[in-house]
């Protein structure tokens, strides 16, 4: 497999991950957002796959398949079920309006580029040069966690952060040991399931997924 | 999700399927003196109609009759139009508006009277608040009788102007 093709494919897949992250901020329909999340999972799996192919690393290949199965298929499916349970979480209710959050996303991306430029300079390679994109994904995910109201979008934000971290680890270490990746992925899965149960039950009891309204549950 | 996928498929299919429209009727005789050659924009003016004609006009441009395939179109401004499509009998309140609309037409222009009210006053001719019949304002080029006229008649009349 020629290096130029390898680099091109890697850049495309990585770029796709970040674009999906931005899209989740841009679109209002939660259904579309979940679709974006699925695409991001697929892109992440592609990154792992390309790296695996380039490094001839079987463990990484298995990880890629795992990522595809969990983040590309399973998690989105679970999220869809949450949405289907509750018609009112069809639209995200952003605390910061969409243009503002998009502009701040751009700002976050610039920031991530600045902070990681030193780090990438240490070991410049095709993969490490793309680390800023992974960091940017993490930051965008955090931003979503902070500024979105509905519980579902909170889950999405969390998953964005997780994907970003996974991307960074792939790019920096060209694949963590299989068992670690396995653990982290299943961990995320667990979190999603728990959150889903929580969301659905609170929804059933209080007929609301709005975290602001959940604040009243503390006593 | 599934429903939307179905819609998308149907649209793509419709692009290549043959259109579901009535076969075009025989060419009517073209109104002499107006060479619009397959392009006719009309500004619709309702000077006091019961909205029966409006419904029929709407269906004349709807998929079933689809007058637009003969080059006819309704437009927003008389400046863009080749004529007015008048419905209803001329009431006092709309007389001024009608005159201004006619003045705003670039020449050459046509006047189409759609429905009995516009053609000869119809059942409202003697009614209170009616200024006059359309003929006393302007000489009408095309008359579409009927209360309301059948979409086919409207389409026929438009084709007599576009000549397609």
């Amino acid at each position, binding site marked *: 497999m020629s290096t130029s093709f390898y680099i091109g494919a890697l850049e495309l897949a990585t770029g796709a991950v*970040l674009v999906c992250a931005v899209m989740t901020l*841009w679109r209002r329909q939660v259904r579309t957002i979940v679709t974006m999340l699925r695409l991001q999972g697929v892109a992440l799996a592609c990154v792992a796959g390309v790296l695996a192919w380039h490094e001839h690393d079987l463990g990484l290949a298995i990880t890629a398949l795992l990522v595809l199965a969990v983040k590309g298929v399973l998690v989105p499916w679970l999220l869809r079920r949450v949405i289907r349970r509750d018609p009112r979480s069809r639209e995200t209710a952003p605390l910061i309006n969409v243009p503002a959050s998009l502009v701040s996303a751009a700002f976050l991306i610039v920031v991530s580029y600045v902070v990681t430029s030193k780090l990438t300079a240490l070991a410049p390679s095709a993969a490490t040069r793309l680390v800023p994109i992974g960091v940017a994904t993490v930051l965008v995910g955090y931003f979503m966690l902070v500024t979105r109201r509905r519980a579902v979008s909170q889950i999405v934000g969390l998953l964005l952060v997780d994907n970003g971290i996974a991307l960074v680890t792939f790019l920096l270490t060209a694949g963590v040991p299989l068992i670690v990746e396995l653990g982290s992925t299943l961990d995320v899965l667990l979190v999603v399931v728990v959150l889903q149960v929580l969301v659905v039950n609170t929804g059933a009891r209080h007929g609301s997924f709005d975290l602001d309204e959940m604040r009243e549950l503390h006593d | 999700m599934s429903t939307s996928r179905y819609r998308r498929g149907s649209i793509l299919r419709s692009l290549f399927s043959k259109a579901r*429209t009535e076969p075009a009727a025989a060419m009517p005789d073209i109104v002499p003196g107006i060479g*619009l050659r397959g*392009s006719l924009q009309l500004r619709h003016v309702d000077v006091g109609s019961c909205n029966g004609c409006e419904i029929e006009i709407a269906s004349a441009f709807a998929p079933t009759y689809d007058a637009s395939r003969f080059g006819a179109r309704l437009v927003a401004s008389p400046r863009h139009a080749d004529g007015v499509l008048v419905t209803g009998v001329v009431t006092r309140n709309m007389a001024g508006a009608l005159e201004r609309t006619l003045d705003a037409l670039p020449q050459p222009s046509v006047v189409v009277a759609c429905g009995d009210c516009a053609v000869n006053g119809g059942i409202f001719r003697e009614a209170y608040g009616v200024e006059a019949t359309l003929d006393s304002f302007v000489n009408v080029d095309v008359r579409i009788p009927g209360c309301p006229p059948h979409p086919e008649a409207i389409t026929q009349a438009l084709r007599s102007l576009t000549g397609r």
Partner: protein
Amino acid sequence: MTDIGSSLGYGFIASLTQVVLVAIGGPLLMGLMAKVRTRAEGRVGAPIYQPLRDLRKLMAKEGLRARYSSVVLAAAPLVVLGSTTLAVAISPLVTTHPLLSASSDLFVIVYLLLTGSITMALAGLDTGTAFGGMGSSRAITIGALAEPALLVAVIALSIQARTSNLPTIVADTITHPVWTSTPTRLLALVALVIVVIAETGRLPVDNPNTHLELTMIHEAMTLEYAGSDLGLITLGAAMRLGLLFTLLVNLFVPWGVATGSSVLGLLAAVVFLVLKTSLLAVVVSLIEVHSAKLRLFRVPELLAGGFVLAVLAVITELVTR
């Protein structure tokens, strides 16, 4: 480019070809998009060459001048059509050596189009009617918000190609086919598609065939025009559409554009261009069929998205260099 005289002659022929092509092709593109829409709605619809018929008729009709209107109203159609035509003549649509190809700079093209929109906005205000002002205000607002996305996307392309000269960018892209699949290009492509949809007043930003003044943007500025003036403006709008679509296609799928200086290559390029552009038109109008018009104050969200994608394009270029 052996001998100046011949190259000049070739450039002239090429530019003339481009102008004629776009002047006829622009209206046909509009007809094609309308056709796709009507077929999708289950109608036959007007023939694809209907816009040309309308133009022929409009040119024969008299123009009207509103009271209180000034020279601006009369001159606007000429300026709009003229600036668009100049942009068409110098930009690399069928060949990379049109007339003035040295100064067919991306920023020149962008600002020529901006000049056209500014003139249109002034014409809308000239008659002193409420509708004209409304259309002008909305159009200029959307233009002002689309401008940054457009410029930044353009700059992303220029950074990649190390120049902002359009023919050079197209020629280099043909020699470096890898560029077309870099994330920079793809992000810039998405951003530019959004901008082009906004600039040409298509759905979901503006509804080109609305009859209700209150929902109009571009149409509201032309409400005062009649006859041949309206014809010029409609032709200008159609050519703008054609130019933007063809540029979009050539920047991202440049193959088929004539790089040599043979007339035969020119003809082949014309055929290629027609095919590529009509394909794009069909795709765009399918998108249109699927989308409802946005509220005026949701449009900034769309354009902000385009802007961020453009910034992303620049940053990925910086990262992946």
